[in-house]
């Protein structure tokens, strides 16, 4: 349920509606509704035979804040941090209500969940590594993404990348997170504050992975931290992914690049030692209980933490 606190009525624009900007006079034709967030609705539109995404809201203030963030991204050279901002304008309806909207580049892609289902879980590693690169760049520019969740991520093609599509929660570091979703919010789980800092996004990223295994989510119950841990151990059986998620949840990484290094190094190490893995697999299948998987996980995680630490030391030495 999205709180509806504005005095202006929320509007739903039917297919074919022509949106003409009051200030810049560009015209956009609505093709379909892509989704609705806490503030505003995003439509797929066509303008000069190009597909664009148009976000329209009755909360002019919140939308303008978002535009400011997109503008700041534009100034960052070299790294594309989000969809490009194309236009900002007002739409005046027939009954003289003014709705502010902005237009951005339309990213086509598919939800992460569908992509993983089709192409396999191993893709998660390269997708997460790419996303961590983007997060690192965002954090270095003084922002925190805030509302990181499955609904805000898309797998785009050529190249295959995990990209964020809605920057509504993006907040300057040190401030209160602008917009969040309870399941992904560390404040909700009593595992940290809502201050915008890089570790806030890293916690949300852990919840993104967890959500892949629990599409309907789960509630926090009496001991929120324990609830999450149990859910992780229950369903995320891949040792590396499990270790990664646990470390994200525990706030072990202070920066996105540390998380990326951990993931990259452990993945490479894991695939370097296929014979050892096989042996361990045989051993556990002989005993044939789920408990025996835990020692294996411990060994792998000790190795990878060790590897990670040595890299960390190396970075500091040079």
């Amino acid at each position, binding site marked *: 349920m999205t*709180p509806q*606190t504005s005095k202006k009525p929320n509007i739903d624009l039917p297919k074919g509606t022509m949106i003409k900007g009051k200030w810049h006079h560009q015209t956009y034709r609505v093709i379909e509704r892509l989704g609705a967030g806490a503030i505003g609705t995003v439509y797929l539109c066509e303008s000069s035979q190009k597909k664009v995404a148009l976000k329209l809201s009755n909360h002019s203030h919140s939308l*303008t*804040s978002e535009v400011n963030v997109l503008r700041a991204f534009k100034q960052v050279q070299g790294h594309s941090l989000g969809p490009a901002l194309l236009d900002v304008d007002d739409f005046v309806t027939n009954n003289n209500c*003014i709705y502010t909207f902005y237009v951005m580049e339309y990213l086509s892609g598919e939800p992460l969940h569908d992509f993983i289902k089709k192409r396999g879980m191993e893709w998660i590693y390269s997708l997460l590594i790419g996303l961590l690169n983007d997060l690192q760049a965002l954090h270095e520019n003084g922002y925190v993404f805030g509302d990181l969740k499955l609904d805000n991520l898309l797998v785009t093609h050529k190249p295959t990348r995990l990209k964020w599509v809605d920057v509504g929660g993006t907040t300057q570091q040190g*401030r209160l997170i602008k917009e969040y979703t309870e399941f992904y919010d560390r404040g909700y789980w009593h595992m940290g504050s809502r201050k915008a800092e890089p570790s806030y996004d890293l916690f949300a990223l852990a919840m993104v992975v967890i959500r892949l295994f629990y599409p309907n989510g789960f509630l926090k119950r009496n001991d929120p931290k324990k609830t999450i841990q149990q859910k992780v151990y229950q369903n995320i059986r891949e040792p590396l992914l499990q270790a990664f998620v646990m470390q994200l949840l525990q706030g072990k990484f202070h920066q996105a690049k540390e998380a990326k290094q951990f993931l990259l190094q452990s993945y490479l190490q894991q695939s370097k030692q296929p014979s050892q893995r096989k042996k361990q697999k045989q051993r556990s299948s002989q005993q044939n209980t789920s408990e025996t998987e835990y020692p294996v996980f411990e060994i792998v995680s000790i190795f990878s933490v060790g590897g990670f630490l040595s890299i960390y030391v190396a970075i500091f030495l040079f």
Partner: protein
Amino acid sequence: MKTGTIKQILLITDGCSNQGEDPSHVATLIAEQGITVNVIGVLEDDQREQPVGLQEVEEIASCGQGISQIVYPQALSQTVQTVTKQAMSETLQGVVNKELKQILGEKQTIEELPPEQRGEIMEVVDDLGETSDLEVLVLVDTSASMTSKLPTVQEALMDLSVSMNARMGRSRFAVYQFPGRKESIHSLIDWTSQIDSISTIFSKLSSSGITPTGPALKEAMYEFAKPSLRRRSHTDDSPDIEEA
């Protein structure tokens, strides 16, 4: 630009007032003191249609120059925050609009500026929202029908303090319930920056059928002027700015 401390009353109720003066009338007077009145109406889980009693909610908020919202209990946490933040932002926009009119003439408001300039002004509003001091007096209706919803209300208030404390500006809360045993409102938590989870804040009350929303609001207004709040503000290191 000085904005002073932003002051709000947040009324959480599930029904219609039935005793004392008209709450909308009281809300108008409160707004005149520079305090906005926001109202959240809580529905029953199985309620499909908006009950008649909750129509009052919108009117109180509009008279109190605040924001209203009617929700199911499970959406309370998010709503309490949205309403508080949005009301803050609107107060600040009001302040900025006033300044704009002084500089640019009577007719100029933020919404009438071209998008580019509006962006710059919104940045100022956002900065103010982050750094202003905030005082919220929460007034909770604890009449019989609200009893089952009180744990959810408490959780929402704890969550609100978690959020507001992540801001750079100072945030302070006081929680009152109404009706009180003898008075029209009863203090549960005196001005504090953190609402914690240690104890159940709502004490068991004999549940009577009366909902004196108007008198309760009036009493809440006086609480803002109480010396306990002022004194504490002065002993803290940041100065208390009263003038807008």
